[in-house]
């Protein structure tokens, strides 16, 4: 399991109801079921991953964040997880609203577009930055809604979400030591992980 998934798992209360949006091969929900006794389910867009997950006995539905969250009733889950996907959805604001409608908490991770390497590349070359995290050219990337950590914090304020916990993490998923300052985290954190709840 990736280190950032380990960090997500640590945010989750044992025995809770989980929806992992973009569950991939099902690693996180399998882990949450086995080690945390959670009722963990997944939604995944890639059909091969869905089949693989279901063939491992995991409850996964073929679907996506933009179109399928609306079909769940309010407060179905304790935690709704969205890993490294927010920047690729059609309507990030609406997806977050849905997550916090159907779940009491939302756990969101995304790559930070405010990292210094991206800023420097754009400044010095005048071209769209390419880094290990942002590794596809602008015309091919599925990441249509990149944001910085500060952008995300601003959106949470606008939507009146409570940020219960946040972390900046580097590409390997290890915690970066920028917890005290959003500004520093925004400059040096390659990825961000937020635990939100409704106010």
């Amino acid at each position, binding site marked *: 399991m990736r280190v950032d998934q380990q960090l997500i798992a640590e945010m989750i209360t044992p025995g809770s109801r989980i929806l992992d949006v973009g569950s991939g091969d099902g690693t996180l929900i399998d882990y949450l079921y086995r080690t945390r006794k959670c*009722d963990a389910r997944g939604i995944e867009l890639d059909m091969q991953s869905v*089949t693989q997950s*279901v*063939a491992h*006995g*995991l409850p*996964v*539905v073929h*679907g996506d964040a933009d179109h399928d969250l609306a079909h769940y009733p309010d407060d179905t889950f304790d935690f709704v997880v969205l890993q490294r996907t927010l920047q690729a959805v059609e309507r990030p604001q609406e997806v977050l609203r849905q997550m916090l409608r159907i779940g009491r908490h939302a756990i969101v991770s995304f790559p930070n577009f405010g990292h210094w390497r991206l800023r420097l590349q754009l400044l010095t070359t005048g071209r769209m930055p390419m880094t290990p995290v942002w590794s596809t050219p602008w015309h091919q990337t599925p990441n249509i809604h990149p944001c910085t950590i500060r952008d995300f914090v601003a959106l949470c304020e606008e939507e009146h979400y409570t940020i219960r916990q946040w972390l900046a993490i580097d590409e390997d998923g290890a915690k970066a030591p920028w917890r005290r300052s959003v500004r520093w985290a925004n400059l040096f954190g390659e990825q961000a992980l937020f635990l939100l709840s409704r106010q």
Partner: protein
Amino acid sequence: MSSDDKKERAISDAGLGASVFTHKMVRLEDGLLLECGDNLAPLDVAYCTYGTLSPARDNAIFICHALTGDQYVAEQNPLTGKPGWWARMVGPGKPIDTDRFFVICSNVLGGCLGTTGPTSVREETGAAWDSDFPQITMKDIVAAQVKLIDHLGIGRLFAVVGGSMGGMQALTWIAHHSERVFAAMPIATSPYHSAQNIAFNEVSRQAIFADPEWHKGRYRDYGAIPARGLGVARMMAHITYLSEDALNRKFGRRVRKAGVSSDAFLFGEMFEVESYLRHQGSTFVRRFDANSYLTITRAMDYFDLSADHDGDLSAPFQNCLTRICVVSFSSDWLFPTTQSRTLVRALSRAGANVSFVEIESDRGHDAFLLDEPEFDRTVRGFLDGAAEHAGLRRGQG
């Protein structure tokens, strides 16, 4: 007498009600109160079982068969001599593993292979029901299955699995008897019969009605069978079970030349696909009763889980505790993926524990009966996972 003639004879005997085969069955004297208000008594339910029921009686899987299927899911059908219709899925070590699970499959109510249906003898008259057999629904079909598991002393089924009309039964189980089903797999199915599918059924029925041997459903009294009508019905239905790609691959535009002068060949030629469909039609009439076909297709047409809930498809699944895995096939245009997705969203709205997989296949609706490794893995994996959640021990039975 050729062996074919012998087969004809045996089959026409079956068609005329004097079945030469004895199906394993249970007679329930109390009968079954149908949705239409009639009480069907006694009720015969013909069924097959495989594997061993665990001492805790918790490892039973009920398999629901499709429109023209039967209870011979994993053994030779005594009427046709063909292997079980899902023998590749059900058996020792197979995805539905009979070393582990106790598998039950019964002939549907209204069928013609032992369970009470139009070919059964009516107690009041001493003659077959024929066209007087009452209108039944999917709920009635499942109610007969519930009576069977009551008889077998099974409180809760571990799983209900069914494709096509079998999927409608699986959905009926979880909509009306959720507490008695731990897990369910509705496959290549829909929560309601679409207008297009009702239309296809209607063409099938009209083909039967147009046969001069139909005799308003009393063909048995005339010693006749509406074989041409039923055959055409089957031919048309069979096209809907396949796909354009499957037909192209299997037959293309290949033509057979008539060796001798025959009416079967138009201008001395016959496309292979025509020959195939005629074969499908002619073998079908030897094993299926026309009144049964009408009764069951009508039950499918009436199927709509939202009908009692003002069109709200999620209402029947409120408080549903069953673990559900919906499976569709990408090239199935009879029960397309869009209908499965509608079902999945309704289940999600009800908060049900649902998985949903669309299997990539170009073989149309029939793909669920064919060799599709991804599908096999899905069935095996879902049942394994559900068994773990149900606390079933591995390798019991």
